[in-house]
């Protein structure tokens, strides 16, 4: 059993989608618990790759390809996970605020979050306060991530937080902000729960919120 789970973890690290899907099926056929397949195979592989990333041994594309493989594998076992009541590490909603079309940073954070075991709902770019609130009501996430790359769209992060407060949803979600011009000071000023400098640390901080 352990051998098969290790194989899944290595497959994730290598981003070998075909092999991972085959090994996951083999694990299911061998009656290995789906929760174990997820945590001790799929997520473990991502965690090991994350450690390599921290040691500067791999580049982001390798992490993203692994995250893509993880997503495909989780999708394949989703019905079984749901049937057995196994939940992801957490749920997050992410988007770039209104007036801002930048999305590379947001997409990196999204993939890092997926890699950390979160289910992520991506609202895209140029997202209004109303859309964020609608997404919070519909998905009830643990974490909301707001991205902004322009000095003139940073204030929109505050507008979103204010709107969430007005909608009486503020105490139901942790809000993280990021983007090139955003600082810890600004995050404090607008009432965000966290600010991180890059995608990898955003995912790490998010994990702490749900642990």
């Amino acid at each position, binding site marked *: 059993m352990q051998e098969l789970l290790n194989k899944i973890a290595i497959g994730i690290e290598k981003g070998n989608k075909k092999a991972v899907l085959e090994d996951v099926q083999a694990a299911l056929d061998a009656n290995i618990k789906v929760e174990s397949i997820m945590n001790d195979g799929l997520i473990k592989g991502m965690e090991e790759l994350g450690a390599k990333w921290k040691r*500067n*041994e791999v*580049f*982001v*594309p390798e992490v*993203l*390809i692994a995250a893509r493989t993880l997503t495909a594998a989780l999708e394949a076992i989703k019905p079984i996970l749901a049937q057995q009541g196994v939940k992801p590490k957490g749920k997050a909603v992410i988007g770039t605020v209104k*007036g*801002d*079309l930048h*999305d*590379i940073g947001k*997409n*990196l954070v999204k*993939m890092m979050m997926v890699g950390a075991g979160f289910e992520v709902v991506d609202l*895209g*770019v*140029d997202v209004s306060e109303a859309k964020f609130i609608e997404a919070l009501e519909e998905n009830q996430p643990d974490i909301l991530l707001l991205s902004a790359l*322009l*000095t*003139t*769209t*940073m*204030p*929109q992060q505050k507008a979103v937080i204010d709107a969430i407060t007005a909608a009486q949803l503020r105490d139901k979600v942790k809000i993280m902000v990021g983007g090139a*011009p955003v600082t810890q000071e*600004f995050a404090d000023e607008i009432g965000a729960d966290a600010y991180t400098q*890059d995608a990898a640390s955003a995912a790490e901080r998010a994990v702490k919120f749900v642990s």
Partner: protein
Amino acid sequence: MGKEFNKVLYDLDSFVYGKSLYPVKLKNGLEIGGGLILPELNFTLPNMLFNESTFPKVIEQYRSIIDEACKRAVELSVPGFVAEVELLPDATYRPEWGIEITKVVREVMYEYEQKHQLKSGLRLTPVDIREDLNSEHMWHGEFWDKIMRIFEEGAKAGADFLSIESIGGKDVHDEAIMYCNIKQSIFGLGVLGCMDMKRLWGSITEIAEKTGTVSAGDTACGFANTAMVLADRGYIPKVFAAVIRVLAVVRSLVAYEEGAVGPHKDCGYEGVYIKAITGTPISMEGKTSACAHLSPVGNIAAAVADLWSNESVQNLKLLGGMAPTVYMEQLAYDCRLMNTATKKGHSAVLLLRDLLTDSDSYYDPQAYVLRPDVVLKLSAEILKGKDHFERTKLAGLAAIRVLREAYENKEVLISEREVPWLDMLQNEIESIPADVNVFTQEMIEGNTSAKFEPKKYDL
């Protein structure tokens, strides 16, 4: 292609800063590439909301930025400069706002020209809002119309140079960078990007001709600078970013095939290749753009520049004054030094150019591909291609070959873990089919980018 470029126009001895084969001269006598290197100042708003109610404050910000910068330029006897108004998205979605900003900034510049004989030119750069997912087509519709309206009415409001950071092909290229997918990069830059540049720059040049303004040039900022920033953070290999820079040459060159005459935009570091191939002047940014982003090319970027820029700085108060004023001062001193070398004679120019070059080129492959000698060599390789697609592939292969040789000769620092990427990238490029239509079909069928809609390009 419209105008064809088939040969490299400089030898190493004549490829220098401040001087281009085809200088651009404005009606007020300001000349770019005519012998002097001049500052190009770029600025943006501080952290503030931009909407109907704040617009008067926005206008006041722009007015005070340019007024104080011009004042400093006069104090430092700057012989001339270019200001760039790089519009924010709000001012492009509402063209009347962008046009008003242009008018206000230019009026202040005119005042200084009349009162203090400070010659200047205004570069107008709207945001390419066709990136908006609601944009129905690349070459028509509401978003295209707004951009064209800003160019036309902005020109009438006083803009001298028309530029844009266009985004054709970026819809696939963003993903290409994140995954270091060189085939996807070549599709984004060498196929979609070139297709779009042709249509876009044909139209911008028409407006420039109609309004008596200058069709200046583009930048592959959204492509190669995105790669540069990610490489600086250690997210992707620097060799990948260096190769992307060279791939971007063919795409940025299309503006000139369609009638642009320069100066090429500051953040497009591929501009050095544009100068080598077209003889038009270029703007570059280096250490003075550290206010906007990191770069490994702080000195080398100036080696053959005709305008010297700061990319963009927020209007914040520093101890020395407001940040754009401070940057005007820094640019002015850099340019004064370089122009003093020019007065001393050609050997002084070559010495300074080579010092700027050699001080950076060893430390990063992205700097190495900007070496004047490397630029001339790679440009010749690129021009061997018969069309944009073939040229883009040749650009990639030649850049990889040059980097590998430089690494083996210990002329450039490439980390051990990046070296295998050179082979991987080469193998990928060599696997691309020769026929652009076959390649296009293959890329459309295998597309994984949610942002890319072939029908927007009539594909």
